[in-house]
């Protein structure tokens, strides 16, 4: 099969593409989770103004189309002095976009926590930063694992938009091979399989965490 | 069989097997028209399954069910064999039997009036104005006239069951099947439903009632069928059954549940 041979010859492109996709998602996820956790605190415990403003910001980022945000970061920011290479522009877009989503996910999980464990923590003298770090956030993390996993899958798929701002990820590689060798099926089929594989891996990971969380809940 | 002697319900050789488990074994009995039969027995004896086989909600493994002499589920073919009923034919038989469930099973997206009117309008194809007028009258009888336009989720358990009874009556059934109608209700409400059921029984409706309420069985039933591990071990008039149970299992059963009666007093 012509297409398969050409894809094999061009495998370096796909390997690079896969590595870019994975690296973008991994770094962006780590940073977005951190920012989301930090931002969730004022969303839950802040004063009325802070909470309202916070929700406004979160709602904005959840309503903006990802591609438009990527365009603004890559093509728009240079006009105010910030010129980023494509990969970094993609990373920044992913971080901005997903920090808002993570903040909302954590806020929601936090508000739905059963009170007993937090009260027990307080009874044992945990307060302030310590209470968050040792009592609240571990619970929030376990409770929100499936939704975070879902968001990771969305992130993996959103990286494909970045090909439009010239980031050499998986879809970029497939499109390049097709555009230059006119063999559409093999490269795009490979791209579909690669995304499918990544999503399956994330779902397996989430399943593991979910099982651990369920086991813990019966303690 | 002469016309006058045809039972409202006849069950012959009914067996039901789930995989390895024999839930009903060779059950046979008749329900005479206008009478009330109570099916009693320990948990797991197959009472609900028996009731659900009568209207083929569960398909019998072997055996035959007759509604006023007409077979349910199978038709007799000309060469003496049996052929399964089509879905439409089975639905038609079912629409002649009303059923009241333990958990009411009302349809939440329809109002109370909608629940009661749905089957007469859609299944029996009767005109809406006529059906709704009758439905309102039935609700009035159940003391729920002012609830006609509400949705079931705001009602209490007792109210829901009364709507369910109205729904079953609305199709003018030849037979009413009750599957533990009071088991999901608060004790104070049980009495209300039982008195509604006693009223229906006194009016001469043919009823088959699966229940744990011994007071009802004693006062309203014309016959008791005692089901144990899937077998009919005793059938008798209530007076005979409660005073002189013939089998060991029945005696033990009554010893356990008989305490119910002295605690409840006259219900």
């Amino acid at each position, binding site marked *: 099969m012509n297409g398969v041979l050409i894809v094999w010859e061009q495998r370096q492109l796909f390997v690079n593409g896969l590595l870019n996709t994975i690296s973008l998602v991994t770094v962006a996820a780590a940073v977005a989770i951190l920012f989301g956790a930090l931002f969730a605190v004022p969303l839950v415990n802040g004063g009325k103004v802070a909470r309202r403003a916070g929700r406004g910001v979160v709602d904005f980022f959840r309503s903006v*189309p990802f591609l438009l945000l990527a365009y603004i970061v890559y093509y728009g920011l240079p006009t105010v002095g910030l010129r980023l290479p494509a990969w970094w522009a993609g990373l920044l877009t992913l971080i901005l976009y997903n920090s808002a989503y993570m903040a909302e996910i954590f806020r929601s999980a936090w508000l739905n926590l059963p009170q007993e464990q937090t009260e027990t923590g307080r009874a044992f003298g945990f307060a302030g930063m310590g209470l968050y770090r040792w009592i609240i956030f571990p619970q929030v993390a376990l409770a929100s694992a499936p939704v975070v996993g879902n968001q990771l899958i969305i992130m993996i798929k959103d990286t494909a938009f970045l090909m439009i701002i010239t980031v050499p990820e998986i879809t970029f590689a497939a499109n390049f091979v097709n555009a230059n060798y006119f063999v559409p099926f093999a490269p795009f089929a490979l791209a579909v399989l690669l995304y499918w594989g990544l999503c399956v891996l994330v779902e397996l990971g989430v399943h593991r965490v979910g099982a651990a969380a369920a086991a813990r809940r019966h303690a | 069989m002469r016309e006058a002697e045809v039972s409202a319900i006849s069950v012959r050789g009914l067996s039901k097997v789930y995989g390895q488990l024999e839930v009903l074994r060779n059950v046979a009995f008749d329900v005479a028209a206008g009478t009330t039969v109570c099916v009693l027995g320990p948990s797991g004896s197959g009472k609900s399954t028996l009731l659900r086989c009568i209207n083929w909600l569960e398909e019998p493994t072997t055996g035959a069910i007759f509604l006023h002499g007409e077979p349910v589920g199978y038709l007799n073919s000309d060469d003496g064999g049996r052929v399964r009923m089509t879905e439409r034919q089975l639905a038609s038989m079912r629409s002649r039997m009303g059923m009241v469930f333990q958990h009411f099973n009302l349809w939440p997206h329809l109002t109370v009036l909608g629940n009661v009117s749905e089957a007469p309008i859609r299944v029996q194809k009767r005109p809406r104005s006529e059906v709704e007028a009758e439905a309102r009258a039935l609700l009035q009888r159940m003391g729920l006239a002012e609830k006609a336009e509400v949705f079931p989720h705001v009602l209490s358990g007792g109210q829901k069951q009364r709507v369910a009874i109205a729904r079953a009556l609305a199709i003018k059934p030849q037979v009413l099947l009750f599957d533990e109608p009071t088991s999901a209700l608060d004790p104070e409400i049980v009495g209300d439903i039982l008195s509604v059921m006693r009223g229906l029984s006194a009016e001469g409706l043919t009823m088959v009632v699966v229940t744990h309420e011994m007071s009802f069985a004693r006062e309203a039933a014309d016959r008791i069928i005692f089901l144990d591990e899937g077998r009919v071990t005793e059938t008798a008039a209530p007076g005979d059954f409660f005073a002189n149970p013939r089998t060991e299992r029945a005696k033990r059963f009554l010893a356990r549940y008989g305490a119910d009666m002295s605690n409840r007093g006259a219900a």
Partner: protein
Amino acid sequence: MSLAALLTIVTGAAVTALLSLSGIVIGVPLGLLLALVRWARLSFLNAFVTVFVSLVRSTPIVTLVLFVFFVLPTLGLEVDPVPAAVATLAVNTSAFNCEIWRGALMDFPREQRDAARAFGMTRAMTFWRIVFPQVWRRSLPALVNEMTTLLKATPAVAVIGIVEVTRAASRIGAATYDPLPPFAVATVLYTLVVLIFVQGQRRVERHMAIKYGYQT
């Protein structure tokens, strides 16, 4: 920014929204069809639908639209960009909708179907009078959520040359050497469209909870 430029962006936004809506109108019933195939457990079709839904749900819309646009012609089907875009959006959203419908169908309480059968309703009548009226109401919040997601992802069709909102803004920016204003306007405009959808969704959820007592 000139009026003509603004109009170009508005047109682009309208094109995007229209493409989205077309995808939704086809994708919602198509998703129901797929869900019914799985619910009815027709063995061969069941496996096909399961694999199909799994693959489509993991594929980004950008990749899917490129696949549809370039692979279909090799099978003899000539496709213009707009039909290819609508078909892709429809297929993509149908896969997600399939899971939404399927969840509601699987969760549907057996007791209500028992009651329907006991009163003489055929399977078809039970589905249309009892199951479907509740299933679509229960699924509505999730379905509208998916519509919002589709609305936000539709700009992906720019990649096969359709002049939707991002391309429109891009053109203006290229012509004026000043990309930030058109992108900013496009963002604000399109985000407003999405926000309207989201508000609608919240209203729907509240209405369902109050009228029918559903917890969503």
